[in-house]
């Protein structure tokens, strides 16, 4: 069984900061998400455009599965919550900050906004994360767990993740990329992905799609 890229989009804010921020502002307005954090918007921006790239609509068919992969997750809001813990008594913390600090909040918003009710997982990790995410998508499609998978990679640069990069702990970039994957050759719009558990060629796939 093959795995085909039926739709693709990316928002590399690190490469085009002004255009990126304006795109995020547009997504915030489009989906009426006044209070949503930037990490979630990054994920949603690419996800909605990948759906549109496939069908012309910023919607997914309801059975679509979602896999979101991120190293630090919503780090900005996690730190916000932790700093509140330092500054305020334990009975004065903001519930919304806590509920949005969980790793899967962004995937949940993507599902809500794009109307996807299929299986949904968020993956965490570092050097092996991208390989693991492709493998999970391939597994879901092979086992007919859902008819298509929207695979989203997202991370956000904030002072803490910049610090992690500067210390050589990570090489996080600011931005997101989303791949709508299908097992059906007739839905192949941007190429076939061969999933090899021993290798990670996400960067090659990504650069090739950007050139299309």
């Amino acid at each position: 069984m093959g795995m085909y890229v039926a739709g693709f989009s990316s928002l590399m804010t690190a490469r085009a900061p002004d255009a990126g921020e304006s795109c995020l502002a547009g997504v915030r307005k489009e989906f009426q998400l006044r209070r949503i954090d930037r990490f979630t918007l990054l994920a949603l921006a690419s996800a909605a455009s990948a759906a549109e790239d496939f069908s012309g609509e910023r919607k997914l068919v309801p059975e679509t599965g979602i896999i979101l992969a991120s190293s630090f997750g919503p780090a900005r809001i996690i730190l916000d919550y932790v700093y509140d813990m330092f500054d305020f008594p334990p009975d004065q913390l903001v519930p919304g900050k806590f509920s949005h600090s969980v790793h899967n909040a962004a995937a949940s918003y993507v599902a809500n906004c794009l109307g996807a009710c299929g299986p949904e997982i968020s993956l965490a990790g570092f050097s092996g994360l991208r390989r693991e995410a492709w493998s999970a998508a391939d597994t879901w499609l092979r086992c007919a767990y859902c008819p298509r998978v929207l695979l989203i990679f997202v991370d956000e640069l904030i002072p803490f993740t910049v610090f992690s990069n500067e210390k050589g702990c990570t090489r996080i970039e600011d931005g997101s990329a989303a791949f709508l994957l299908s097992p059906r050759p007739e839905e192949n719009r941007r190429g076939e992905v061969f999933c090899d558990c021993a290798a990670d060629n996400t960067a090659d796939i990504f650069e090739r799609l950007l050139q299309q």
Partner: protein
Amino acid sequence: MSSSDSNTIVISGMGGISPAGQDCAETRRNLYLPPLPPNRMYPALKMPFRLLIVPVPKGRNKSESLLGIALREALADAGLTSGEERMRRVGLCLGSSGDVQFNDLYFLNDFRNNAVRDETLLRNFTSGSIAEKCAKELGIGGPVATISNACVSSADAVSLAAMWIQSGKCDIALAGGVDRISKMPLTGFHALGVTSEGACRPFDRDRSGLNLGEGAGIVVLESVRSAAARGHKSPFFLAGFGAAGDAYHITAPHAEGRGLEKAVRMALSRAGIGPDDISFVNAHGTGTEANDLCEGTVLARIFGERLRYFSTKSITGHTLGAAGVLELIFTLIMLDEQRIPPNWNCAVPDPRLPVPPMLEASSIRGSFAMSTSLAFGGCNAALIAGRF
């Protein structure tokens, strides 16, 4: 997936530590005894919780210790040894809610004050996910993944690991999860207004919220062919699994349980069985009004009047990312005993529930049982345990 299908996933071992017991043998006894009250209190919040006391070696955190205990028990039960040649074709899929976040309070306080002198903690965190680090220690060479899907994390880990085997990515996979109590979930769940000031009472008319708990659980999944080839016999198999999203709200379940119903029906369909084949349901049952009403209503809609269900969170508290796999293990133990406990701490069932939970221990006859999990973000999962 029937028990005779070559695609069947054998559960060839299990290990778990939770407030229900330090291992599966102790858990087996405690599931049928009235639970002790929560053993710790967060005084400023008047909030009881269930803390485990385990030795934590220097250089390790509590989650690693809990996970180590569950892994050792599961591997021994399955007749596997860490580092053996076979482990090079084994997969490892773990779920956790808190252990994927870098939230060390001392480090972050230093960071905020520009006073970080030693990056070791951060370097350790970014050196790999919890599954990657465990895989390295155990000599595991197959697929690896760490899922962070709030309270369904480890249930989803079991499903993904099962599909690795079904898709030929490995012959054996360890699957499970871990979560430990820390200040972040304690204050966070309190802020959400869903914690109880007493022992939690799932499905009770006078329930007042959840208690937090902690723990770790691991199941060893294996293809029939692999188990037969090494002569390992187990009474259990994973009959089916399903997952679906509500696409509704960040914390509240869909009022009509849209996602949960879909997840349950998907698991039944993948197992190739009907609702009448399920002898009982070990429900998520957190003891919050939103969860209990949604879950009780959906289960009654699918299973009808003959539904037998209960929650074990009155024994363990809510172990978050570890809850899915721990409750699968409890379900396997009950299938093996052919006996289910009452829904402890439920004196008067909520009259809005179409079918009341089990109020007394009861013997059962059957080969299949279900464990359900719900989470923030509207994620729902159902696992079906089978007994040969």
